[in-house]
């Protein structure tokens, strides 16, 4: 797993790539909590995400809850069909605003 942070427009842009498994999801969770604490508008780029298991999904859900409580925005984009299917099976697709790519994510109102 690799995490890389950038800025675009008024968003914090977080790229999470590689394998997010139960061994490294704790690293992701800590990063997301810290990010959620200081940022109000967040985009997560999942283009390079090859794999995610339930612990990583849980970390994302925790961030979403945190951001919504703050009245902020969290959007995901670039989910491969496999990752999108895992989101679907988990019922997460109705909680997270999911977009095909960066342009679509940053331009959408939400």
């Amino acid at each position: 797993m690799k995490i890389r942070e950038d800025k675009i427009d008024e968003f914090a842009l977080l790229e999470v790539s590689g394998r997010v498994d139960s061994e490294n999801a704790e690293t992701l969770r800590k990063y997301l909590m810290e990010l959620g604490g200081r940022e109000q508008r967040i985009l997560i780029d999942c283009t390079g995400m090859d794999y995610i298991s339930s612990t990583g999904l849980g970390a994302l859900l925790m961030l979403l809850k945190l951001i919504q409580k703050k009245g902020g925005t969290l959007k995901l984009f670039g989910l491969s069909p496999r990752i999108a299917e895992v989101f679907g099976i988990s019922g997460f697709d109705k909680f997270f605003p999911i977009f095909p790519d960066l342009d679509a994510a940053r331009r959408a109102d939400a």
Partner: protein
Amino acid sequence: MKADETLVLKLDNSLAALAQLHAAVGEFCRRRAIHPDIEFKIDLALEEVFTNIVRHGYDDSDPHEIVVRLHGSRERIRIRIEDDGRHFNPLLAPAVDLNAALSERRVGGLGVHLVRRLMDQVRYRRQADGNQLTLVKRLAGKEKLT
């Protein structure tokens, strides 16, 4: 088509063994020319089962062995996981309520749900000293087993 084949893995009850599990599944699937979409699902289901045993299966802090058997035939991959942890039948675990609102969804509790949805069949057998869980993923044929 490849002959039947069984691979036996003996793993420590530690999340550090996940890398080993993943590598073995990858090699097994590539050798048998299993489609990467199927490998992805086997990989994920197996991680969920294994992680649950490591996290929830034991009261002590002793080392334990978790045995994973991958059996490949033309028609299916059968995965059998045996542990000597606390008795737990995932088929009896309460279903995740996919209609719940965000505020009602807890962080966690997805593992068993994913396993059931990713595999074509899940069977549980309670053993004197632990659990045996069998996962089946069909390689050929349309019907979803249950």
